[in-house]
């Protein structure tokens, strides 16, 4: 702290020295004064090394969410005979999406087209991007290198299709999962990322608040997951066999890595290391803590024991809900958001899902879909100053709420339609599902020729 104060003092001193220089110049010659005045009027975009460092770390943190975070979180939840299939699907989807992203995904999302629906083809193969290309941040006059923006957004495109696989875990063909990811990424993820985050995007212009991707990532993936488990069907032996998670230890490790990595996801979405970033950071802590506690409390009251899976589920539900909200709500709003999302998601995955009878194996829709919807809608509410949010007196909560709901509905319909068509296409060509003997034997041996554990 002392060191920082000293540095700040030095900065102020040097600033005042520079400020006094034009005065000497003025005394020297009139010409020199003109030159200095011109330079001052021209706004030179600033690339701050602090911002660049933070965004590089953020990008790596989002990768850490995917491998090994999400892979272990999901892996622990399946039976031991399918552990490797989950690790492989997560890893390979992420790699495929990284290649797709630089080839055409970035262009389709942020290619600079003025269309509200997609980014166009101007930046296919990252054409025109150099080390000197810069991307805007949220502060006028501050930029970050475009390569960095591409990489940061790439990690989002890599994790989102990997989220979906939990819904149809333990029964799909490896090739089919990869083909679906590419189709879905192309026709659902890239357009929705453009709509929400590009300055020309339909929802961006409508004023929808989605700070770090509640609609783009979580609702989008949650809907694709629901459609997936409906199209693919239940696992063999669903409702009869014991399908209990094989390692709550792995699940806890994975969930914790998700929480850590989520600081890259949420705080990095600020694109700069400043006060706004720290608001996203505190909210990502607080909403998650509140959601975890709430899930444990409900379990404690409902069945007398708080479970590890419950705590991990609450953790992820809280992270999902705070994703769209973290840049505009306050810490007290984050507590309320965490409590509400756990109550709704708990009720959904323990009652509604079982009544409806579909097999969303790892509750991707129940936690990412439902949690994402809760987060997106409540962002409209908790961003208001009355709930401790950053929006001031001119904030029209009801009209914002309507825009939030519009964003949710568009994402649900878009992702729902694209997902259904993509699943059907893959089913007609590759086939989505393995045969039932293969499924009984487990995907590790049959798809990958390996076993996770040797006794």
């Amino acid at each position: 702290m002392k060191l920082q104060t000293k540095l700040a003092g030095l900065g102020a001193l040097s600033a005042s020295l520079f400020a006094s220089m034009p005065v000497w110049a003025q005394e020297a010659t009139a010409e020199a004064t003109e030159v200095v005045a011109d330079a001052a009027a021209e706004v030179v975009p600033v690339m701050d090394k602090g911002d660049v460092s933070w965004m590089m770390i953020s990008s790596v943190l989002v990768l850490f969410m995917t491998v090994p975070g999400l892979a272990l979180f999901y892996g622990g939840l399946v039976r031991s005979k399918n552990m490797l299939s989950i690790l492989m699907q997560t890893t390979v989807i992420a790699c495929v999406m990284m290649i797709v992203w630089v080839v055409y995904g970035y262009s389709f999302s942020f290619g600079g087209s003025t269309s509200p629906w997609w980014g166009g083809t101007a930046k296919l193969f990252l054409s025109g991007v150099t080390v000197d290309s810069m991307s805007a941040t949220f502060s006028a006059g501050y930029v970050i290198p475009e390569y960095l923006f591409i990489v940061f957004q790439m990690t989002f495109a890599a994790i989102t299709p990997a989220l979906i696989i939990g819904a149809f875990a333990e029964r799909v063909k490896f090739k089919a999962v990869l083909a679906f990811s590419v189709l879905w990424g192309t026709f659902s993820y890239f357009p929705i990322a453009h709509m929400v985050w590009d300055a020309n995007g339909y929802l961006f212009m409508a004023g929808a608040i989605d700070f770090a991707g509640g609609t783009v990532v979580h609702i989008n993936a949650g809907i694709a997951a629901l459609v997936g488990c409906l199209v693919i069907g239940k696992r063999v032996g669903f409702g009869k066999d014991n399908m209990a998670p094989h390692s709550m230890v792995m699940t806890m490790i994975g969930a914790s890595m998700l929480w850590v990595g989520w600081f890259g996801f949420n705080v990095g979405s600020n694109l700069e290391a400043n006060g706004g970033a720290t608001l996203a950071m505190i909210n990502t802590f607080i909403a998650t803590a509140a959601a975890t506690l709430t899930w444990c409390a409900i379990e404690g009251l409902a069945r007398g024991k708080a479970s590890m899976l419950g705590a991990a589920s609450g953790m992820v539900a809280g992270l999902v809900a705070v994703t769209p909200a973290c840049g505009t709500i306050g810490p007290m709003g984050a507590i309320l958001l965490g409590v509400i999302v756990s109550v709704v998601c708990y009720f959904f995955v323990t009652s509604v899902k079982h009544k409806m009878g579909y097999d969303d194996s790892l509750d991707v829709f129940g936690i990412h879909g439902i949690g994402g919807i809760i987060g997106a809608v409540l962002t409209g509410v908790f961003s208001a100053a009355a709930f401790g949010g950053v929006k001031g007196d001119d904030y029209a909560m009801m009209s914002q709420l309507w825009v939030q709901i519009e964003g949710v509905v568009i994402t649900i319909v878009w992702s729902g339609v694209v997902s259904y068509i993509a699943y059907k296409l893959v089913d007609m060509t590759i086939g989505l599902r393995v045969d039932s003997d293969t499924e009984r034997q487990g995907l590790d041996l049959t798809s990958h020729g390996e076993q996770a554990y040797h006794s």
Partner: protein
Amino acid sequence: MTSEGSVLGMPEKEGKHVKLIIAAIKPFKLEEVREALTAIGVRGMMVTEIKGFGSQSGHTEIYRGAEYAVNFVPKVRLEIVVADALSDQVVKTIRDTAKTDKIGDGKIFVLDVEHAVRVRTGETDDDAL
């Protein structure tokens, strides 16, 4: 050291009979039972981790509302071979130590053993124990 001939002949020798006691008990009682048996002079036992069901017939685990019946409950199986004279005392000791008065405490079976041999020396029956 008994002669090789008696191995095949199985002569009835007074005081040489041995019994096999098989007990399935709750896993967390194993250490207590081992201590108690050692204290009464049991010099060896075989221990296996097993699963099974008796009148306890499993329990239920709940994962995000999905209930799974776990039909086979983990138990520990003890196999103890002792001289006839010690057999009743071993059974009583296991019963006293492994008992929790709750369902699922386990079972004890006592069987006659035809013959026992110590691998290193070739000693037989209760000399082999």
